[in-house]
């Protein structure tokens, strides 16, 4: 079956847009083909800085014929209806129609055969639509035609289009269409500098091969492979190691059609700047890789660049040029770094009084003071030295105003650490500058130094409480202040460091520190805020457990007990409960408890009353009743004391003892006894089962 080759040749496509554009092209073309009844065998899209290309193979040469029936008017219908029917169906006269018998009468039926069209024609129709509606993040007009409305827009000026269709053994045909003066054809161009002449191609195979001969590697993955392999090799040859960087590799591969990897170096003296600053300078500004020395694990004075040409001097001028630029950039970075070192971090703080954090939440200066106070309160709970914690919170944000962080925002925190160490701060205090931002996401490391933990928690809780107070909570996919991340970060800090922190109390304290109510601060309902925030934590915890493949319904079962604001204990309970519910005892007890709950809720509805209160031992008639009552008493006290000791596993083991009694009860005892008093007493006993299990969780909230 025939194949399609499509190429859209343009001026340089931004690297960051290339991968999605290739995907979009493949999806749009194949979706439309399928919608036209043209099922294809396979498709693959490619992209370079100057071209988007697509091959779709195994497309039928024609669409299948379509047969449809169309019901017309009744026999003997008015002439207008008949004429309308003939016109709509294209029949010449009623003689061409069939007649269908129906309980309602006899109707004319038209059989319409729509012959499938040649795929070439279908393509000629759908390809221009795709080009005109292509979803570039930003597109533009250009040239003479841009004077008229409706001019073609593309990511950058589009120069030519290849569109051929045909089977392997024959000369393919050009899909005939034109967009804004560009006729689809079979001509493209090679590398901008090394092979700029026109190339005529027939199909994908010779297209890819001819491009390669014309110094264009069509496949982005192939370009990445080349760059990575060559870069590693260049570093290795000198006894060094490439510092791999996937994001940079993706970008660099989108800047070249013919990657040529070269190595340059810079003056040793720049190695006095922190490695991260060197890397940020070389990576962000120059899109080059850095190289480390495996013996020391530190950066060396080398960098790796990816040129787009095989230069006639072997790349000497290119390397020399890049070295000059990198030297200038590193001089700037070194200057920034050394300038920063001249000012103590605390001397930068007054400036924060002028910088608004959020118009309703005051300045950065006020926020830093809030974090200091909250961190000092949290410090004893996490085993951190209060004075060090205060100092750490005081300095943690100061690096935001340094030159280096201004230039490279991604180095925030890290630079704070370097500057704090340089001015002789305690190691824990310095580390907190970097660590208090963590964890930034589910994969990020959680700090373990108590000082960092205290500042990190204070920072996150202040953020959450603040935005809650001004009613800027996340909604749906919108979370502009990254509050979900903050909550998840707090959860991980608490759980992974086994910290006992009453969230409600901490939230209340954070609220107390917020700017005064009034014009500045139109607070949402402050009374409800801590509880509301706690349920947000519960939701984040559920999401986290679900992501870890754990049972998230148990979170609800634990939070339903009320008063649970110690996240560590919640997690412990959930873990113990999950383990218990995996055992036979657990499963059966859950089933028994649910059965008791179901019966109770039916009977409560019937009698319009609840069955609270202790059962009357004198009314027990059967041994199973007595045994259950005894088991409940025993379990209550055992589980209760285990929970008090926070030994949830023991509490679960105690629960397990309830199971045989519950099973036996349901086996032998008829709850709805004829004697009302006995019935009431048995219902009270069922209620006791429910009450006993609440020592560990609300079983009714557990799924299954």
């Amino acid at each position, binding site marked *: 079956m025939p194949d399609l080759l499509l190429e859209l040749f343009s001026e340089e496509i931004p690297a960051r847009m290339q991968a999605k554009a290739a995907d979009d092209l493949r999806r749009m073309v194949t979706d439309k083909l399928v919608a036209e009844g043209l099922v294809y065998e396979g498709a693959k899209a490619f992209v370079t800085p100057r071209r988007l290309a697509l091959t779709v193979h195994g497309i039928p040469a024609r669409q299948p014929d379509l047969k449809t029936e169309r019901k017309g008017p009744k026999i003997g219908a008015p002439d207008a209806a008949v004429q309308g029917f003939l016109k709509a169906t294209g029949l010449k006269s009623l003689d061409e129609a069939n007649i269908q018998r129906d309980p309602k009468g006899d109707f004319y039926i038209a059989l319409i055969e729509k012959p499938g069209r040649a795929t070439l024609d279908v393509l000629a129709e759908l390809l221009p639509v795709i080009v005109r509606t292509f979803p570039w993040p930003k597109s*533009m007009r250009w040239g003479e035609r841009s*004077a008229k409305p409706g001019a073609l827009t593309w990511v950058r000026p589009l*120069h030519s289009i290849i569109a051929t269709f045909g089977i392997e053994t024959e000369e393919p045909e050009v899909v005939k269409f034109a967009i804004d003066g560009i006729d689809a054809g079979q001509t493209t161009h090679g590398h901008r500098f090394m092979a700029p002449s026109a190339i005529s191609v027939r199909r994908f195979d010779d297209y890819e091969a001819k491009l390669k001969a014309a110094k264009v590697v069509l496949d982005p993955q192939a370009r990445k492979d080349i760059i990575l392999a060559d870069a590693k090799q260049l570093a290795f040859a000198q006894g060094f190691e490439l510092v791999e960087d996937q994001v940079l590799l993706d970008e660099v591969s989108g800047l070249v059609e013919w990657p040529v990897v070269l190595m340059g170096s810079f003056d040793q003296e720049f190695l006095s700047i922190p490695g991260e600053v060197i890397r940020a300078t070389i990576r962000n500004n120059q899109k080059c890789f850095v190289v480390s020395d495996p013996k020391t694990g530190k950066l060396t004075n080398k960098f790796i660049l990816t040129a787009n040409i095989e230069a006639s001097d072997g790349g000497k001028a290119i390397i020399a*040029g890049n070295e000059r630029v990198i030297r200038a950039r590193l001089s700037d970075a070194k200057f920034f770094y050394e300038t920063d070192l001249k000012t103590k971090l605390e001397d930068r703080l007054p400036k924060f009084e002028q910088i608004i954090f959020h118009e309703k939440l005051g300045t950065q200066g006020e926020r830093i003071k809030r974090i200091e106070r909250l961190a000092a309160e949290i410090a004893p709970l996490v085993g951190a030295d209060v004075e060090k914690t205060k100092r750490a919170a005081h300095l943690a944000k100061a690096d935001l105003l340094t030159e280096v962080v201004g230039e490279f925002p991604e180095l925030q925190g890290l630079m704070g650490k370097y500057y704090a160490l340089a001015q002789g701060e305690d190691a824990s205090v310095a580390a907190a500058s970097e660590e208090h931002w963590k964890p930034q996401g589910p994969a990020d490391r959680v700090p373990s130094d108590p000082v960092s933990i205290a500042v990190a928690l204070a920072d996150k809780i202040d953020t959450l409480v603040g935005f809650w107070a001004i009613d800027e909570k996340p909604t749906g996919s919108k979370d502009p202040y990254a509050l979900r991340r903050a909550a998840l970060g707090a959860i991980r800090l608490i759980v992974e460091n086994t910290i006992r922190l009453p969230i409600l109390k901490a939230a209340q304290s954070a609220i107390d520190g917020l700017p005064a109510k009034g014009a500045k601060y139109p607070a949402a309902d402050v009374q409800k805020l801590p509880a509301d925030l706690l349920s947000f934590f519960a939701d984040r915890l559920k999401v986290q457990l679900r992501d870890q493949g754990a049972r998230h319904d148990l979170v609800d079962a634990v939070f339903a007990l009320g008063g649970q604001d110690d996240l560590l204990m919640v997690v412990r309970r959930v873990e113990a409960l999950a383990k218990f519910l995996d055992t036979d005892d657990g499963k059966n007890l859950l089933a028994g408890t649910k059965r008791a709950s179901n019966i109770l809720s039916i009977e409560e509805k019937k009698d319009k009353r609840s069955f609270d209160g202790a059962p009357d031992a004198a009314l027990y008639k059967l041994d199973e009743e007595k045994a259950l009552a005894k088991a409940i008493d025993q379990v209550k006290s055992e589980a209760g004391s285990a929970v008090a000791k926070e030994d949830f596993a023991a509490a679960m083991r105690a629960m397990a003892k309830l199971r045989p009694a519950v099973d036996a009860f349901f086996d032998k005892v008829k709850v709805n006894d004829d004697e009302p008093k006995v019935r009431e007493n048995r219902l009270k006993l069922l209620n006791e089962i429910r009450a006993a299990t609440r020592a560990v969780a609300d079983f009714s909230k557990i799924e299954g």
Partner: protein
Amino acid sequence: MKLPAIALIPRFPADTVPRAQNPLARPILPMDELPAHMRPERSFQGFILALQRFWAEQGCVILQPYDMEMGAGTFHPATTLRALGPRPWRAAYVQPSRRPKDGRYGENPNRMQHYYQYQVIMKPSPPDLQDLYLKSLAAIGLDSSLHDIRFVEDDWESPTLGAWGLGWECWCDGMEVSQFTYFQQVAGVECAPVAGELTYGLERLAMYVQGVDRVYDLNFNGREGADKVTYGDVFLQAEQEYSRHNFEYSDAEMLFKQFVMAEEACKKYLAAGWKNGGNQKEHLMALPAYDQCIKASHVFNLLDARGVISVTERASYIARVRDLAKACGEAWVHTEAGRAA
């Protein structure tokens, strides 16, 4: 044969350099005999003249700098206003650019509060504008078979001009040497047709071609020995004086007044310029009004450098200049040169 770091354009029979296979590397200019001191890699002025000559060959009118202080060549009415309206336009010129905040008292090797931009505007943007640009690089001595020239995404936006466009930073061996923009909107008006704009950072390019690391070391006149004049001879003292002025002594009170005066004058001229009492059909004073917009913009830059404008005020000043620019653009498209024939 050892090749020099920067390929020379063989314009002189004495130093013939093997011509690269790439057609773009061929000299575009006739093989006349330029004296050594006029060659682009030898002198700053020769470098500028090579660009002037190249773009003149492409049919551009070679204009002189606009006689007002401005932050970039884009502000020149030959770009801002001429980019609007349907009439074809091709121009090229050097524009001294004033960025008061970038002054470094002459101590930074490449940051200055006054530098030169070379500006090319072609409306409608020709289909081979990229090729023309690459040929212009060849004309100033950058051989594309030897250097790594790249078009790296850079979306251009000028909040003060109410303008945006798409294009690239052009990189030569990792150094940004030009900006390349297809104007989509200028002064709040859609460009129809679209103009292509090229902006070359002249000092930076010349430093690269001359192989110097400090802008003040650029050879300005191409002579050697006692006759040599450097960029520093011409501009170092000015950088020191203006940095002092911009950061420490400029009269902020006067500048605040000047801003308001320019703003009011601009509005006044715009209002008075409508023919037949403001029927909004034909405007007769778009250019003088736009001068006041340029003035306001530069005064704002001076105030900004002086550090007397707060963060919140800053946005509102920018918006005020943009409003002027937009009103001027609106007036321009109702003038003889700005409207459809």
